[in-house]
């Protein structure tokens, strides 16, 4: 039963996530809320691992969510679910490629879909950020006293090196994921003593 549900959820994601890269992320965040298969902090860990390993980001995160939910068969089911709509859609439009590319309706629909997809990613980003910046994972009782100052400082440093310093701006995200892991361990970001 879980496999049918996984397939359905990822089929939906593959059908409606437009734009590649993080486009599937709002759907996964919504999936976490709705099904309880995984938490927001798990989702962030999965994105970090997916970004640091070979393979397209969308496929990697689908595989990971599937694995966390139902092991290797779950990973296969989720991934097949994600790519099935792509296969169907591409095989259908392959017949009239040029017409599709130059179609006014398709073009206009995508004019509206791009900002929509960006808005969805921004909103999901904000909603998962709670688990990175606040001590509680519940998300309900977010108060200023629960804010982790060390996380805010790390975020400010990362923002500077990925956006403003020309020498480090072009580095692959893996570098910063590794750096953050190190900082997290040294300053016990998880609140667990290292001994």
């Amino acid at each position, binding site marked *: 039963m879980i496999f049918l549900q996984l397939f359905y959820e990822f089929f939906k994601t593959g059908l409606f996530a437009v734009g590649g890269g993080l486009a599937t992320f709002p759907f996964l965040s919504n999936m976490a809320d709705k099904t309880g298969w995984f938490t927001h902090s798990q989702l962030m860990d999965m994105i970090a691992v997916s970004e640091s390993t070979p393979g*397209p*980001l969308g496929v990697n995160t689908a595989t990971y969510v599937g*694995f966390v939910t139902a092991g290797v068969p779950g990973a296969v089911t989720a991934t097949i679910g994600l790519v099935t709509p792509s296969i169907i859609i591409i095989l259908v439009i392959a017949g009239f490629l040029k017409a599709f590319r130059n179609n006014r309706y398709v073009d206009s629909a995508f004019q509206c879909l791009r900002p929509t997809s960006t808005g969805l990613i921004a909103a999901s980003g904000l909603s998962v950020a709670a688990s990175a910046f606040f001590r509680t994972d519940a998300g309900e009782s977010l108060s200023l006293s629960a804010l982790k100052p060390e996380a805010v400082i790390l975020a400010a440093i990362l923002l500077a090196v990925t956006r403003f310093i020309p020498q480090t701006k072009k580095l692959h995200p893996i570098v910063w994921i590794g750096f953050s892991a190190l900082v997290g361990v040294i300053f016990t970001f998880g609140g667990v003593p290292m001994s």
Partner: protein
Amino acid sequence: MLKALSELFWTFAKVGVMTFGGGYAMLPILQREVVENKHWATDEELTDYFAIGQCTPGVIAVNTATFIGQKNQGIIGGIVATLGVVFPSLVIISILAGFISSFSHLPLVINAFAGIRVCVCILIFNAVVKLWKSAVTNRLGLVLFLVVALGSMLFHISPVLFVILAALLGILLVQFQGKEASGK
């Protein structure tokens, strides 16, 4: 036939392994493997597939693989090429995920991922800024961005609904502009 299909599978498995993150990063890899080594498509065709892969739902790498596989060996080819491109992800992520979950109770892992989550927030923020530059180019784009971002944050509406409504709006706009243009 079987030999051609296995060649498709392994070539795209290779493309999958060499794709880090996806999107534009994979275009040079496709160019080398598909255009220069295998001659399955021309540069122009590849650019076309890639452009259409971006404006159809789904993962761009998968869409492009389906296109090239389909052109090469028909429907089966499209399916086989797609299975090839996702194969490395399935193997690598399953192994890593199993590994990570058996160590997830260690303080080292807990603290490392707590740090990593901060980094993921920044990566998402940077991705949004980058997308914003190409997506929000006019007032309509800005309004859509704000309505969707606020709507999905405050009301927990499924992203599916927003996507369907945005596509419909785009289609209706053509109708509207068409009438306006012919009315003048």
